[in-house]
């Protein structure tokens, strides 16, 4: 109980908790769940974009997208490492992903149908991710906070690149404009869902905020996202697919329509439009790669044996 009080005092004082420090089991569990979910999202998030790398419409766009996917693999690595400091192995986390036990961001269960979706993902999805992640740079768990510092810097770069793709399309031919608007229509609501259920249905929020694992509520972040994004859409001549969007002078932000939470919960349950495909691709990659990982282990063991013998 003393330890708990000391822990809570440190957190309240915005000190970092480090791997060797004592921490409540629930804190550890919550962090493992959140960090591994975040790591999985980086890895699964490579798939919708990977779908367009081979079809990127210019050498420059191809290079930018490859760099982005490379960043995401890197983020996945930092985050898996951060989670490992909490005593879970990468294999365990990956098995949990493949068995459906661990989650990843619902947004990656939607398909990338046209090139504009790559713009929309950068602009909206990375934009929402940043909104979620910026506060996490000051999250109470040190390794996680430090990973987020690197992640956030790169994500905001991705967000600008995504917006730039959309800007280009929206200023392009009729077909390009249509693609851009269609992508915004399809990605808008799923992006709003990325902040999680409304605060009144988010039972863990209070505890997570007390532990400084979270620093703003879902609804606060969602509002912030809408307030930033609606004018960005306007600026390039696109329209957010929500007739209820309207500036509210009193609250100093936009009013907006109700998210279809039944859709959200269905996707959380694994019923997203391409959820099965995403998991099938990940599982296949993992299973097809088993012989390679085994070979690498076998080789490393042989080398270790040789060094020992020498």
């Amino acid at each position, binding site marked *: 109980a003393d330890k708990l009080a000391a822990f809570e005092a440190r957190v309240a004082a915005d000190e970092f908790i480090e791997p060797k420090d004592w921490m409540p089991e629930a804190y550890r569990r919550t962090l493992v769940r959140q960090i591994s979910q975040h790591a999985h999202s980086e890895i699964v998030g490579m798939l919708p974009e990977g779908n367009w790398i081979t079809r990127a*419409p210019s*050498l420059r766009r191809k290079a930018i997208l490859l760099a982005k996917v490379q960043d995401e693999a890197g983020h996945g690595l930092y985050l898996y490492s951060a989670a490992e400091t909490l005593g879970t192995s990468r294999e365990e986390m990956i098995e949990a992903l493949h068995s459906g036990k661990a989650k990843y961001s619902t947004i990656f269960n939607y398909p990338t149908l046209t090139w504009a979706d790559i713009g929309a993902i950068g602009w909206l999805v990375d934009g929402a991710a940043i909104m979620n992640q910026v506060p996490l740079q000051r999250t109470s768990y040190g390794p996680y906070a430090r990973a987020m510092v690197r992640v956030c810097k790169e994500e905001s770069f991705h967000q600008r690149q995504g917006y730039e793709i959309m800007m280009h399309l929206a200023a392009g031919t009729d077909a390009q404009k249509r693609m851009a608007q269609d992508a915004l229509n399809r990605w808008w609501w799923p992006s709003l869902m990325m902040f999680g259920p409304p605060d009144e249905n988010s039972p863990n929020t209070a505890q997570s905020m007390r532990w400084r694992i979270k620093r703003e509520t879902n609804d606060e972040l969602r509002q912030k996202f809408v307030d930033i994004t609606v004018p960005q859409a306007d600026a390039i001549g696109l329209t957010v697919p929500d007739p209820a969007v309207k500036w509210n002078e009193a609250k100093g932000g936009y009013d907006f329509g109700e998210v279809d939470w039944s859709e959200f919960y269905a996707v959380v349950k694994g019923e997203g439009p391409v959820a099965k495909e995403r998991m099938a691709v990940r599982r296949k990659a993992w299973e097809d790669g088993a012989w390679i990982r085994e070979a690498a282990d076998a080789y490393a063991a042989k080398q270790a044996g040789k060094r020992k013998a020498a």
Partner: protein
Amino acid sequence: MATIAQDQALFDYLLRLGDDALVLGQRLSEWTGACPTVEVDLSLANMALDLIGQATHFLDAAGKVEGQGRDGDKLAFHRDVLDYRNCLLVEQPNGDFARTMARQFLFSTWQKMLFDALTASKDELIAAVAAKAVKEVTYHQELAQEWVIRLGDGTDDSHVRMQDGFEWLWRFVPELFEMDGVAVEMAERGIGADVMAFREDYDRQVRAVIEEATLTVPHDQRPILGGRQGHHSEHLGHLLAQMQFLPRAYPDATW
């Protein structure tokens, strides 16, 4: 007349350099999200990115030499198979990871020696791109070499797969050392490299790595040639169909 002929050879030579990089970069990028570990995902994306960068430099330069207003994008996305000048090795499908690594090792070992030589090119742009790229390619070569050894000397299964990878691709190696008219002219003008000058080095290094990997050097097979003249395998057309879709479907658009 002479000038045009000179330009044609240089144009062709730049296409070869650019297309090798572009096609291999495209093949590597097909691995996105399908790799055995996140680390491999990262390193293959990184190699692909380097290669697309090289391709951009060489193809932009080719467009300038041609002088018809085509840039790298135009050349990358609006040429069909008969006008592609890459070697056949790089267009071969990924196969399993062992075959991908065999392809990478055979190519990057060659490309590293080529770029080493090209740093002395009389063409300033080629020399500059080669000087920058040689660092990247050294890393590609090392990475592929490590995987070749690891898989060759790993498990029984990985050993067989690695050996199969080399057996399958071996017939495309001689094309790397083909000195046809364009290559000879470029070498004589001090712009291109005489690849035969490092043929023995190449054979020696490849042999040494294959042996360190506890594998067997494949028997020589009848060389398959044609890529440098636009006569490719059946695979390139499918690769281009995918890669070029958007610019061809929306010819009026910029991206």
